[in-house]
């Protein structure tokens, strides 16, 4: 993968990070999709060599700095998600956007479950069901988000 594509990847990650930490009204907050996770998924699937596990790890580390109770929590969850995405990237890519969204949903569930488990083990349990809401909205915004990310990656 060229340097150019790596730059686009980082830019996409930065935009996603900003969207993730952008202040929202409190009632809207639980519905905010995990933009950075979607971005990592996209790059792991469409450019598994420049994206992939390392990208997931460092994106997760950034999330940890912004909103993690302990360092490494989001990093672990995102490494896992991007590993799964890289492994299944060929099968995933061949699907239409709608079916992709159906696969993104369990991927987000896996991601949130890892966070949930680590939160519990590390003594910051948040058992509110609201924390799972973003998995649904994330799957719903996947088709347009993937289209935008593909455009940003210069593939459209």
């Amino acid at each position, binding site marked *: 993968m060229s340097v150019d594509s790596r730059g686009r990847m980082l830019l996409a990650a930065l935009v996603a990070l900003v969207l993730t930490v952008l*202040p929202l009204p409190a009632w809207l907050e639980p519905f905010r999709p995990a933009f950075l996770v979607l971005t990592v998924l996209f790059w792991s699937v469409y450019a598994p060599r420049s994206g992939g596990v390392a990208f997931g790890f460092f994106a997760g580390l950034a999330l940890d700095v912004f909103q993690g109770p302990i360092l*490494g929590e989001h990093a672990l969850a995102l490494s896992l998600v991007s590993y799964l995405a890289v492994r299944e990237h060929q099968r995933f890519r061949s699907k239409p956007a709608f079916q992709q969204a159906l696969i993104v949903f369990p991927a987000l569930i896996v991601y949130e479950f890892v966070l949930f488990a680590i939160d519990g083990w590390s003594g910051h349990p948040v058992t509110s069901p609201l924390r799972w809401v973003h998995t649904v909205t994330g799957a719903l915004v996947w088709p347009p988000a993937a289209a935008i990310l593909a455009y940003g990656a210069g593939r459209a």
Partner: protein
Amino acid sequence: MAAFGTVPGRSLQGRGGSPGFRFTVYALLSVVAMYLDQRQHYIDQVRYVLQAAAYPIQLAVNSPPAAWAWLRETFATRQALETENARLRATERELQLRSMRYEALERENGELRGLATALPPVADRWLPAEIVSIQLNSLRQRLLVDRGALNGVFKGQAVLDEHGLIGQTTHVGPWSAEVILITDPEHAVPVRIERTGLRTIAVGAADTTSLALPYLPANADVQRGDLLVTSGLGGVFPEGYPVARVTEVHRDAVQPLAQVRAAPLARVDTDTEVMLVWFRADHPAAPASPTAATPGSGSLGELRQGNPAMQPQAKPQAATPPSVAPTTNGPTPPTAERGAPVTSPSPSNSPSDAPAAGRPHDVPAAGMSAPKGQP
């Protein structure tokens, strides 16, 4: 990496080996990072650097609201400014009138306590800080303020606004600090009911506008409208600062504990500035510092070595009586079931060192440490 069997021939062997291998490496790295962050605090330095790196992004994200506020301020009408000016002048006059007798009362108070000279105020130094960003949802209630270690801010520092307690700093970067609000579900603040002197713990409820008092027995003397002030226990907040007002008391015949809710006095949603406070360590009203605890308490010493990450409130101390001590016939305070920050007071303290409720300075630990500084 048999555990992560990648399909051979997929030609993803980049510089770092197969995805499975890379995942193993990064997963191990994350787990090590989590372990170090949670148990050892070795990577506080790393966090400090990362927080510094994150600050520009946080500033940038916050710039549209900041720009909007600036625009509004710039184009404020003359009339609005005059109104505000008049209001400020009225407030100032009122405050001056109220503080007129302050000096005399302070001296009187000192004489009553048998001290040769009046005590200086417990707050040593104030530093206003602007709120950079606010995270207010049911899961996390944090502020980011624009003062950091370079301004002398430290971890576990009390943060107030002009109405009451806001919270304490959790992560401190060079130019910024994260403040956990008292309404955060992970936060607990030791309080005293001002009317009765009854001490308890106020825990952040799952919504942004209320605190819960989960450890009050059903027969506790608490009413709607009671003022909660900091009790000075816990080692972070000094004694006597207003925290919240009780809004709801629900007593259920079958429940051993009363369900009490309180609304915080600080107005985080409208504040743009908060105050970081430094306190005189040798003042009787200062937060009981962990070093002031009496030695020779074996089991409590072990408690003190507990995981500090799980105890944003300072650790329990030898001289800290159980918070529900005045009602000794009530149930023992339940161990904090949510884990950590809710450091429930150790029930192993003898009830004899529980002071009578309602005394002006019922802070035993601070009381013990105070004479060192006083002639």
